C-alpha cells in the first residue's frame, strides 16, 4: 500500500515552529543550566525566538493566501497581520515579565512557609514563566489561522493551559493569585467543553471539519438547521468566554486582579487579539451566510457588554479591576466589528486590536511601577497626586487612559471611529448608538483617574513610584510611541491593513 506523506509547508508554519523550539529549549535550560545563569539565558531565548518568529512572519507576508498543513491552517492577509500584532505585543510584554519582583520565588512552596522564605533568601526565580509564555504565544499564533475544528480546539487549549499556570505565580498576595488561577482554570475548562460540544454539532451539521466545508453546507442548506444553531451557539460561548464578553465575563476581573501584573498585561492584550482573530475568521468565513441566525443575539451581547463594562468600571476602587472592566467594554466595541461583517469591519477590527493591545500593555506596565513596601499599590485612592510626584509616569498613564477612552490624537480614537463607522455601514445602528453612549460613560471614569492623579494633593502613605528598570522603560516608551503615532498618522497602517486583510476560505 502506498503511503502519501502529508505536505506541511514548513516555511508557512515556521513562526509557530520557531516559538515551540524556543519553548522546548527553555524547558531544557531549566534542567541543565545553573541557577545563576537561568534568568538571562531564558530571557535571551524567549526574546530571540519571538523576534525570529516576527521576522519569519514578515518574510511570508507576500506568500499569503494559501493553505498549509493539508488545509488545516490558512495563511492569508489577516493571518499575517494578526500574527504580527500578537508577536509585537508579546515582545513588549516579555520585557515586563523579565521584572523578577513580580513572580514568586518557588511556586510549589506554601505561602508563608520556611521553604518559601528560604527560596526568597537564596534569590530563587521562577524562570519557567518564559517557556510557558512561549507555549502560550505559539497557541495564540495558531488560533487565528486555524481553518478546521481540530486545529482550532488544540490551539485554544495550547494558549489557555500555560496562562492558567502563569496566573498563579504572583510573588505578593499569593493566595489571591492561586485563587485567580483556580477560577481561570475551572471557568476556562468549562467554556472549552461548550466550545467542543458546539464543534461536534457543526461537524454533525456539515459532515466536514473545515470552515470551508461548513460554509458550503450553510450555502447548500443541506443539513439539519437545529444542529447548525446549537453548533453556532455553543462554539460562540467558548469564544465569547475567551474575549470576556458579558455574560461570560465573570472570570476576568478576578483573574486580572489576582494574576501577576506582567501576566495580566500579556494575557489581556495578546489573548484578545488571538481570540478575536479566530472569531473574525469563523464568523466571516464559516458562518457568513447564516447571518440571520447569529447577528441579533451577538448584537444584543455586544450592547450589554459595552454598557455593563463601562457602568461597572465606574464603581471600581482598584486600578487592575477598573482596567478589567474597561477591557470588558472594549470586548463589546470589538464585537461590533464582528457584527459588521464587511471588509471595513475586518480592517477596523485588526487596527483596533493592535492599538488596544499595545495601549493595554503600556497601561499595566505603569501599574507595576506604583509600589509601597508591600508590593504594588492598586488602590486608586493611593494614586492621588501621582502627577505631582512623578509627572512622567502619570502623563504616560494618562495617555493610555485617553487612548482607551478614544480621545482624538490617540490610536483609540481612530480604532473606535473606524469600527463604529463599519458597523453603521452594515446597518447595525443600535450597536453603534450603544457604543457611542458607553464610550461617553467610559470617558468619565478614565478622566476621573486623570483628575485624581493631577489635580488632587498627594497623601503621604508610603506609596512611591519605582524607578523603572530599562526593560520596563522600553515597554512604556514603545507603547507610548505606537499609541500616539497611530493616533496622529494612522493612514500608513490603515492602508496596509486595507490592502492585505482579505480572508480566503
Amino acid at each position, binding site marked *: 500500500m502506498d503511503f502519501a506523506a502529508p505536505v506541511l509547508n514548513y516555511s508557512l508554519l515556521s513562526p509557530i515552529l520557531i516559538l515551540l523550539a524556543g519553548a522546548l529549549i527553555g524547558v531544557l535550560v531549566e534542567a541543565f543550566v545553573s541557577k545563576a545563569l537561568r534568568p538571562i539565558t531564558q530571557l535571551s531565548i524567549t526574546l530571540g525566538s519571538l523576534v525570529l518568529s516576527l521576522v519569519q512572519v514578515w518574510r511570508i507576508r507576500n506568500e499569503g493566501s494559501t493553505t498549509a498543513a493539508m488545509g488545516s491552517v490558512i495563511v492569508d492577509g489577516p493571518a499575517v497581520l494578526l500574527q504580527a500584532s500578537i508577536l509585537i505585543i508579546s515582545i513588549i510584554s516579555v520585557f515586563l515579565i523579565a521584572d523578577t519582583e513580580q513572580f514568586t520565588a518557588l*511556586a*510549589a512552596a*506554601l*505561602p508563608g512557609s520556611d521553604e518559601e522564605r528560604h527560596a526568597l533568601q537564596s534569590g530563587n526565580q521562577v524562570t519557567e514563566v518564559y517557556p510557558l509564555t512561549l507555549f502560550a504565544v505559539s497557541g495564540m499564533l495558531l488560533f487565528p489561522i486555524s481553518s478546521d*475544528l*481540530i486545529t482550532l*480546539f*488544540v490551539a485554544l*487549549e495550547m494558549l489557555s*493551559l500555560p496562562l*492558567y*499556570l502563569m496566573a*498563579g505565580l504572583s510573588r505578593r*498576595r*499569593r*493566595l*489571591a493569585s*492561586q*485563587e*485567580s*488561577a*483556580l*477560577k481561570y*482554570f*475551572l471557568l476556562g*475548562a*468549562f467554556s472549552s*467543553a*461548550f466550545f*467542543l*460540544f458546539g*464543534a*461536534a*454539532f457543526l*461537524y*454533525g451539521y456539515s*459532515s*466536514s*471539519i473545515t470552515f470551508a466545508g461548513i460554509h458550503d453546507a450553510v450555502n447548500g442548506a443541506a443539513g439539519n438547521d437545529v444542529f447548525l444553531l446549537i453548533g453556532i451557539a455553543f462554539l460562540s460561548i467558548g469564544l465569547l468566554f475567551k474575549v470576556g464578553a458579558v455574560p461570560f465575563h465573570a472570570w476576568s*476581573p*478576578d483573574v486580572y*486582579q*489576582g494574576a501577576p501584573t506582567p501576566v495580566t498585561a500579556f494575557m489581556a492584550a495578546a489573548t484578545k487579539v488571538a481570540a478575536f482573530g479566530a472569531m473574525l475568521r469563523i464568523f466571516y468565513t464559516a458562518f457568513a451566510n447564516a447571518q440571520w441566525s447569529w447577528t441579533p443575539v451577538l448584537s444584543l451581547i455586544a450592547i450589554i457588554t459595552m454598557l455593563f463594562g463601562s457602568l461597572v468600571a465606574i464603581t471600581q476602587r*482598584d486600578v487592575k*479591576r477598573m482596567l478589567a472592566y474597561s477591557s470588558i467594554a472594549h470586548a463589546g466595541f470589538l464585537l461590533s466589528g464582528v457584527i459588521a461583517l464587511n471588509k471595513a469591519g475586518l480592517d477596523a477590527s485588526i487596527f483596533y486590536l493592535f492599538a488596544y493591545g499595545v495601549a493595554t500593555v503600556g497601561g499595566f506596565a505603569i501599574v507595576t511601577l506604583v509600589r509601597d513596601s508591600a508590593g504594588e499599590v492598586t488602590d486608586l485612592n493611593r494614586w492621588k497626586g501621582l502627577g505631582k510626584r512623578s509627572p512622567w509616569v502619570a502623563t504616560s498613564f494618562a495617555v493610555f487612559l485617553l487612548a482607551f477612552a478614544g480621545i482624538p490624537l490617540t490610536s483609540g480614537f481612530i480604532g473606535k471611529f473606524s469600527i463604529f463607522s463599519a458597523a453603521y455601514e452594515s446597518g447595525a445602528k443600535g450597536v453603534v448608538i450603544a457604543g457611542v453612549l458607553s464610550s461617553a460613560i467610559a470617558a468619565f471614569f478614565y478622566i476621573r483617574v486623570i483628575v485624581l492623579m493631577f489635580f488632587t494633593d498627594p497623601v503621604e502613605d508610603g506609596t512611591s513610584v519605582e524607578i523603572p528598570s530599562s526593560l520596563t522603560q522600553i515597554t512604556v516608551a514603545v507603547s507610548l510611541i505606537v499609541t500616539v503615532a497611530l493616533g496622529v498618522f494612522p493612514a500608513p497602517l490603515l492602508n496596509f491593513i486595507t490592502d492585505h486583510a482579505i480572508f480566503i476560505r
Partner: protein
Amino acid sequence: MDAANYLYLSALLFTIGAVGVVVRRNAIVVFMCVELMLNAANLAFVTFSRINGDLNGQVIAFFTMVVAACEVVVGLAIIVTIYRSRRSASVDDASLLKR
C-alpha cells in the same frame, strides 16, 4: 438501533456535567464534571462520524482525549496547590477576590 439515541445520551451527559459544574462545591468534583462534558462532546463526535460516514469525527475524539489529559495535569497542579495552602478544595472558600 437509531444513532440519534446516542445524541440524546450525549446531550444528557453534557447537561449532567454542566449542572454539576454549577452546583458542586469541591474543585475536584467540578473538574470531573468538566471531563464528563468533554466526553459527552466526544460521544457526539463519534456518533456524527457514524451518521455521516466520515472518519474525521473519530480522529477528533482522540485529540480531545489527549487535550483532556493535558488539562488534568494543569488542573490538578492548580487544585493541589490551592488545597495545600488552604487545606480545602472548596470553590466557595476561595473568595479573596470578591468585593
